[in-house]
């Protein structure tokens, strides 16, 4: 089993995403929500961080938060999966514990 890591801060304002990626083990699940969803956007200065992580970790983005910010699913980095609130709950249940990177 493995952990679910959550990131809810913008990768341009805090290093939460960077630390999450640095300190999470292979096979971990990572969920980006609230301002963390900007990390899943294509074409940004931090795109390569996520793009290189999707091979060894499962990265998810919370759809309602992405949509609220005017972003559409076609702008999400390849390999990142969109989940809704029910999917968030499923991830919590499927993993040993939740590690929040606030």
């Amino acid at each position, binding site marked *: 089993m493995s952990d679910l890591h959550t990131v809810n801060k913008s990768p*341009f304002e805090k290093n939460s995403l960077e630390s999450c990626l640095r300190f999470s083990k292979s096979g971990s699940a990572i969920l980006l929500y609230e301002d963390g969803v*900007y990390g899943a956007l294509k*074409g*940004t*200065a931090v795109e390569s961080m996520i793009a290189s992580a999707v091979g060894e970790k499962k990265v998810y983005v919370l759809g309602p938060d992405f949509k609220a*910010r005017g972003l559409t699913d076609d702008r999400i980095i390849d390999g990142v999966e969109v989940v809704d609130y029910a999917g968030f709950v499923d991830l919590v249940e499927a993993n040993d514990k939740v590690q929040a990177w606030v």
Partner: protein
Amino acid sequence: MSDTKNFMFLNRRAPYGTIYAWESLEVVLIAAAFEQNVSLMFVDDGVYELTKGQDTAGIGMKNFSPTYRTLGDYEVRHMYVDKASLEARGLTADDLVEVEWEDWETEESVDNIVEVVDSDRVAELLEESDVVFSF
């Protein structure tokens, strides 16, 4: 001495995750009501405030983005966006809302007062302002 000052609202935060963007908008509307010269500057994550197509139905929060498009009616004449901040965040000018401005007395109008500027221009504009409000 004139009572009118050049107010600059410096917006550096993304919407919804924190209250800064909304609070800024509230103060902008107050300042405009007191007939000051109000301009808005969007840098860093503040550029995300202006994305088109925001839909907050799924997160249970008020979508305040349509308010930006009304600012021209409150005699806000300039909304500046830092180009480098946009580029680092995967956005272009096409992703941003357009804000129309019209002077009802002279019928002078501008189709879109949202202007993408470079960092040197941002620095100039901030320095030229009488007061800078930071959010």
